[in-house]
């Protein structure tokens, strides 16, 4: 038993080849955290957007700034990835798609759809 305790650990996440399910799971957490950080900025934009037509226009103009656009892309992806990944988790909760192969397919779907829809949605918003 002592020998086991001294076994070297090798957990360099950048060098381990992670399965897609793990990538989607970590993505879910990162996306969630990014959205929590965004909460005060979103409420501030909400506050401005309802105060007057001029303020509404100023929010719209601010969102056209390249930096804001970059953050918007990140948040749109965060929302979509978190939403799809969350739906995947809810389905697994009710015993849908639990098998390893099904879980891998659904993980690829979440990952791909989130990226694809982010690109499509930003194209529409322009």
């Amino acid at each position, binding site marked *: 038993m002592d020998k086991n305790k001294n076994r070297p650990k090798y957990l360099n996440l950048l060098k381990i080849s992670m399965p897609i399910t793990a990538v989607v799971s970590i993505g879910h*957490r990162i996306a*969630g*955290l990014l*959205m*929590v950080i965004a*909460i*005060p900025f979103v*409420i501030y934009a*909400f*506050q401005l*957007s*309802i*105060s*007057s*037509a001029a303020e*509404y*226009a100023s929010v719209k103009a601010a969102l056209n700034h390249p930096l804001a656009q970059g953050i918007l892309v990140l948040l749109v992806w965060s929302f979509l990835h978190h*939403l799809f990944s*969350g*739906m995947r988790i*809810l389905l697994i*909760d009710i015993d849908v798609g639990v098998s390893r192969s099904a879980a891998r397919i659904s993980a690829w779907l979440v990952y791909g759809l989130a990226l694809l829809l982010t690109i499509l949605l930003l194209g529409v918003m322009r």
Partner: protein
Amino acid sequence: MTEQVASGLRAWTIQRLSAVYILVFTLYAGAGFASRGASGFEPWVTWLRDPFNNIAVGLFILALLFHAWVGARDIILDYVKAPGLRLVKLAVLALVLIAMGLWAFKVLLTVVIR
């Protein structure tokens, strides 16, 4: 069932219930905005003043706060092991989220009352 198990189950349930509400609200609001051609200040405020919509938004704010609480709480519990620091971080998170909720409700109320 021990206290700790019950608390975990409660968090798990809150996370799922709020997730379902957020999903339904997103579909409802998304469909509403997509189907209406007009955008801009007036349509936006009119949409928010609709009694059904502003209650739905209010519930969305509540669901989002509970959801964010469980999610961010889980992150803190995973990475912050020292009990004292953990308590401080959880307390700060709770206060910030409650403050965000009050702020969001205040903004929503100004639209509804005006």
